[in-house]
């Protein structure tokens, strides 16, 4: 951060930017890692670290999608079932229709984009609150996934190489000591791309501006509706990527899965320091938030903590993480 000493009297301490919070969340992550490493020798094994990363990949991608929407001041409850819907679309394209792999991938991303366009339009044009529009969309997609798939999983056995999308390791092929699964690399790629869009493109700039003061953006002559729809469409496309990821990991499109995933995604976003009231947030924070969730889950399992307590701990950490963020802002 650049020099922030304003000429006007800044009596209450030096200003610290979002960097500190990212550090806070980051130090939370470090703290968890340290605790778990000390508690179990198995925790820091390469394989377990890779397992944690792989476990982060799907939720991480969904959380990146949710980040975009939340920065505009909206919310997207449909990310989980949209992911499933896209997976099913891929299944239809590859297995039912027998088309080549790239078309399946494209199909999932297009399907996600199309659904995002619809949600965005309902929100921007019909002025239905995001909570309701995406809640309704969540249910619609859940039903449609079952309808389209005929309520049974669609397997990708006829598409050799499909499982390699998430489970293979291009990195491992080059550096055998570092077999990072492709799924993880895809998460990083999506995150990098989203971070680039947020910080370097007009879409990103409007995403922040909408969350900061939508009316001011409108009165600046900007076509607010169009950009809002674009944000939901982008988030939808990212959910399409998540759909491919989960389908590849499970070698199947599981039509019944997905509901409930939205809460994990939103939790990752919020733990990562993105404000639910919009206008601020970072993809890096979201990644850290998603990692905190997976590290917690993995660590508590490695320590064989009873499952019922895992939930309690997770709930508590979510509240504490947000409270820490609030405290920080108040004391600044």
């Amino acid at each position, binding site marked *: 951060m650049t*020099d922030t000493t304003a000429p006007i009297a800044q009596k209450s301490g030096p200003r610290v930017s979002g960097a500190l919070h990212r550090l806070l969340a980051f130090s939370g992550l470090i703290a968890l890692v340290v605790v778990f490493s000390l508690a179990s020798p198995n925790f820091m094994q390469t394989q377990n670290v890779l397992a944690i990363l792989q476990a982060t990949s799907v939720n991480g991608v969904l959380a990146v999608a949710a980040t975009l929407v939340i920065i505009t001041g909206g919310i997207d409850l449909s990310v989980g079932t949209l992911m499933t819907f896209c997976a099913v679309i891929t299944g239809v394209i590859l297995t039912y229709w027998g088309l080549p792999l790239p078309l399946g991938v494209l199909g999932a991303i297009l399907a996600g984009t199309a659904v995002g366009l619809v949600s965005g339009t309902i929100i921007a044009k019909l002025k239905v609150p995001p909570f309701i529009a995406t809640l309704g969309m969540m249910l619609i997609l859940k039903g449609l996934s079952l309808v389209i798939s005929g309520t049974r999983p669609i397997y990708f056995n006829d598409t050799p190489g499909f499982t390699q999308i998430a489970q293979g390791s291009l990195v491992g092929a080059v550096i055998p000591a570092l077999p990072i699964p492709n799924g993880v690399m895809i998460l990083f790629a999506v995150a990098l791309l989203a971070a680039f869009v947020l910080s370097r*493109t*007009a*879409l990103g700039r409007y995403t*922040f*501006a909408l969350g900061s003061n939508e009316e*001011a953006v409108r009165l600046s002559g900007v076509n607010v509706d169009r950009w809002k729809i674009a944000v939901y469409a982008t988030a939808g496309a990212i959910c399409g990527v998540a759909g491919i990821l989960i389908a590849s990991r499970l070698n199947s499109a599981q039509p019944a899965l997905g509901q409930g995933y939205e809460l994990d995604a939103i939790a990752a976003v919020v733990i990562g320091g993105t404000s639910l009231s919009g206008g601020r947030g970072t993809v890096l924070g979201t990644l850290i938030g998603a990692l905190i969730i997976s590290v917690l889950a993995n660590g508590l399992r490695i320590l064989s903590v009873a499952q019922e307590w895992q939930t309690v701990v997770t709930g508590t950490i979510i509240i504490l993480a947000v409270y820490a963020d609030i405290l920080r802002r108040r004391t600044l």
Partner: protein
Amino acid sequence: MTTPLVEMLDIDKSFPGVRALSRACFELLPGEVHALMGENGAGKSTLMKILSGVYTRDGGTVKLDGKPVEITSPRQALDAGISIIHQELALMRDLTVAQNIFIGREPRRFGILDEAALNRDARAIFAQMNLKLEPTVRVETLTIAKQQMVEIAKALSYRSRVLIMDEPTAALNDAEIAELFAIINQLKSEGVGIVYISHKMDEIKRISDRVTVMRDGEYVGTVPAADTPIDTIISMMVGRTLSNETAAITDTSRNPVALEVRNLRRGRDIRDVSFELRRGEILGFAGLMGAGRTEVARAIFGADRREGGEIWVGGKRVGISSPQDAVAAGIGYLSEDRKLFGLATGLDVRNNIALASLARFTRAAGVLDDAGMHQAAEKYIRQLSIKTPSDTQEARLLSGGNQQKVVIAKWLLRDCDILIFDEPTRGIDVGAKSEIYRLLNQLAADGKAIIVISSELPEILRLSHRIAVMCEGRLTGILPGGASQEEIMRLATLREPAMEVRHAG
């Protein structure tokens, strides 16, 4: 000598980036109407918010009846007999009028709200105020003036010993003001001390006993109202005698027409408004609060819907149904409320300046040219002397005047031919104000067409080449620059539909 009801000594208060009060003093006697005066941002509201428990002071002493007190919440202030009518309306729009007035003090019977008593009590207060208002209507359905009356009724209902009125008449008409003054006189005779804040000089003379003047958060002095000439009070406020210097009015009547508005209509807000604006011209819009000037500006800009009327830009009719269309047609609008409508407070200075021009900085694949934006921002930071450590400073951390300059820079960068400035100097200090005047004159000299909406007559008089006056949604007249205040006030209160156009020279 009576003990003062209230004594405030050496009050200090700072907000991040702003020193609002610095050793400010104030004293209020029982049965006195004490006017508190000062320019925008002088610290009047802040001082009174400290007295009424909204803010806690950084330093100084507050005494009630000669005894030091700590007032840390609105509740404590009310318990101590201090009530306040806030400058900004603070009403619960979904509740009824009576429910608003008695919020926190609802009459109850056996723990159950006694709605009948609530409405009866509200009705009694309205009767006392000679106000025709149904206690059971919801506040959001009321006009601003009625809402202001509800605020007044609410403050009165506390029957406090100290009543603070922060610009209570800003939205009222003459009859309502007369009623208010009758009530004030009544309260005065009952020994209530009243703090009266207003920018209307005539009111000060009519109602107040003493005047305390503040400037830049500091105490300047206290004088008896009756014996002190207005000019003296004004010079105490601004720190010098104001020379009524106005720039020589250039004749723009032969310049090409930049904007023509024909028969603009929307219900009772905008009633058949037509006017022309020429290049190089500053057209001032005067009128009382609620006259409909903002409505006209927003309708031209496409921010609100309109029911009829044509807008011609540069001799061509343009269809404007959204701000986007207006900006495309070369019209920029600086809103009267920069916090609500002007500034994306979470974004930095650079992006706020570029907000209306992002398309220009968008390269292939939607990538933004941040270097170009940086250069543009730096240019305006220099040109408007915006005080900011860098163009990456968050806009919300700037002082009000500098925020306003950022919004102005946004429209300068967009390079609109027609600029509508709605209350451009609201909440801006004297120095910044004259900088903005200079800038507006410069823009006009450069051939831009400018509309300035202002509630401050001196501002209108100082800037305008011509003056449009509105009353109740109608354009009641267009006067040449340099018209007298009386003439403007006459048109501003001209209630019958008549249009007068007097040509200059």
